[in-house]
């Protein structure tokens, strides 16, 4: 067994080293530009880092803050949400998100979908990856206990209760992980980035206009058809709007 583990570990390490490429960005200039009120320059530097594949909570936070300072509250909220997705336990990020949600024209809409609520239970504490790892640990411990239970001929009674507790914890974690994954995969969150967007009842301008949503409104995407997206708002309203009017929170 030991002879198998070592080559596997070396291979994994090689993949990690190859995939993680360090790139240099002039964040100092971005900070200077921001402090001098040149928000456009700061935004372009942070954007270039993101375009190069950087996925860092700090970069998203700084980009969002630059947008916020420039008055673009929609893109500010979008990038704060991205920052929170990577680093959910940052208080200043959560504070800014709450501030922008209170200030937007559509107000602070409460989520009404039970599945989305359940899937978002861990969002404020754990990233998806952290939840994934935690669930994997519980999953692994369950199978370890199960294997011991299977091998053990005596004292199974005590192990049975351990196994039961382990299985219950694993079920809870799996439900949390699966619901979060399902909600993210089937109803990806997005933010309206245009100042005012007309929502229609079909995928086209020739349909009935239903209502308007305004900058920084948060929606979830349900369906895509010919550059039009069917979205649902937290309060349950649904409609179609142009794909160019919103941006997804999760960056691929």
């Amino acid at each position, binding site marked *: 067994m030991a002879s198998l583990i070592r080559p596997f570990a070396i291979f994994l390490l090689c993949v990690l080293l190859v995939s993680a490429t*360090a*790139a*240099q*960005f*002039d964040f100092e200039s971005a900070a200077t530009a921001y402090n001098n009120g040149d928000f456009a320059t700061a935004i372009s530097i942070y954007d270039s880092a993101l375009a190069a594949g950087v996925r860092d909570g*700090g970069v998203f936070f700084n980009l969002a803050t630059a947008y916020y300072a420039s*008055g673009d509250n929609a893109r500010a909220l979008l990038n704060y949400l991205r920052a929170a997705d990577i680093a959910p336990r940052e208080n200043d990020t959560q504070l800014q998100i709450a501030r922008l949600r209170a200030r937007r*024209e559509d107000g602070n809409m409460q989520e009404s979908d039970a599945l989305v609520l359940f899937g978002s239970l861990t969002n404020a504490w754990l990233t998806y990856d952290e939840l994934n790892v935690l669930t994997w640990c519980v999953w692994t411990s369950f199978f370890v206990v199960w294997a011991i239970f299977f*091998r053990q001929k005596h004292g199974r009674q005590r192990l049975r209760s351990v196994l039961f507790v382990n299985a219950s914890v694993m079920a809870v974690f799996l439900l949390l992980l699966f619901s979060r994954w399902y909600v993210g995969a089937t109803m990806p969150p997005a933010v309206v980035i245009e100042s005012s967007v007309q929502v229609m009842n079909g995928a086209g301008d020739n349909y009935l206009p239903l*209502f308007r949503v305004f900058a920084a409104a948060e929606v979830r995407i349900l369906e895509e058809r010919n550059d039009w997206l069917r979205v649902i708002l937290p309060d349950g309203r649904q409609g179609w709007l142009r794909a160019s009017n919103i941006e997804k929170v999760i960056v691929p």
Partner: protein
Amino acid sequence: MMPSYHPPSPAMCLRLISAKYLFVLVVVLFVFVQIIPLDAQDSGSSFLDVTIDSLTPYVGQPTIYTWQLFLPAGMNAESAQITLPPFTGFGQENLPAGDVQLQTVNGQSMQVVQRQIVLYPLQTGTFTIEALQILLPETPFQSAVPLSSPPFAVNVLPMPPNAPVYFQNAIGQFDVAAALNVTSIAVGQPVILTMTITGTGNIQQVLRPKMVLPEFWRIFEQDNPVQPASPVFGSRVFEWQLIPAQAGIHVIPALEFGFLNPQTGSYETRTTTPLPIEVLAADNPTTSPPISADVTQTTHSQPDIMLKPLPENIASRSTNFDIWGLVLWLLPPLGAGLVAFMSSARSRRNPSPKPERLSGSRALQQAQMQLKTALSQSPKDASVMIADIILTYLSRKTGQSIQRETLKNALSGLSLPVQKTLLDCLDHADAGRYAPVSEQDIKLLVRDTLRILLEIDKTWQA
């Protein structure tokens, strides 16, 4: 010569009388038909009239589809079988049905049944509203009469471009008014702002206009207290509760309401008058934030939020690790399965593994505990258990797997009375499997087994 008179024969008389009565009957029937309106019989004069407000409505513009059924007075209108067209491409809402009216049409008194349906075009394009079918059922006086309307081609127009900022979805002709419930309040006290939209159009669908006030106002939307009775005309009232956080003479700015006027085909905007209000300082003045021009777009010339320090070198991730994630998730169940497989394979290869040899009196202690447990079992189970306990004890003491067949060899070092007592205990235990035994028997058997195991243990210890 006198003409001879031939009295009519009875048969002839009968024929004459029948013809006479038949004639009278025909006359009476004719008069009956002419005098009595016999409304029901004359349903051939019934007709159907269908109209639609506009054949070129805008998408979302409510359009009224009206049908009127004209029936001769007195005919039962309830019996008419009505088949409405499917109204493909339209949302629909029935207006409340009115009473049956009486009208004179071409000198004839007719009853008029009228129904109205509000149609909401959902998509631009040309849609055909199929014919409305009404069947007047068969009566004793005449056969069934089918009535039908011509189909309509409705061309639904798209909304004109360049909608004003405050346009949401209103189509029609509207007017707006706004009012405050008080003209003077203290800081922190609420004031109710009411906006009333009156007119014709999609009044029930009109959305709440956006309220934009300086930041020191807190805005709470109130439920609509009044809903229009009709879907196509009336008043819609919206209310906001406003709470100021700053004293002074303030003005609630004019509220703007944009709508599409289908008569002119252009957008129009109605504006309420600005409403002044005096906000008095509270007894305990609160520290209110400074006034800001706009709620949504606040540009900060001097940034007030610190950026996070970032290292110059940040690793960019580009590889997707989904496949490795899957492998990691599969490893635990695969590992557990492997353990289970190996374990079962080993047990198949070695069905009776060599027992662990226990030193000192541990084997005896375990046997004693198991015998106590056996006492709580049913007599039959206890018998099986006691036999197993004896064999397990001997196996542990000798370090060899001892079965009934190999028992004599294992006991060879013991005295004959001890061997005999032990074998007796085993026999009794075996007998308990097949013969009825009492709890008392089991207690005795446990006691005897304990004694003999103690004796064996002492012997082997020595």
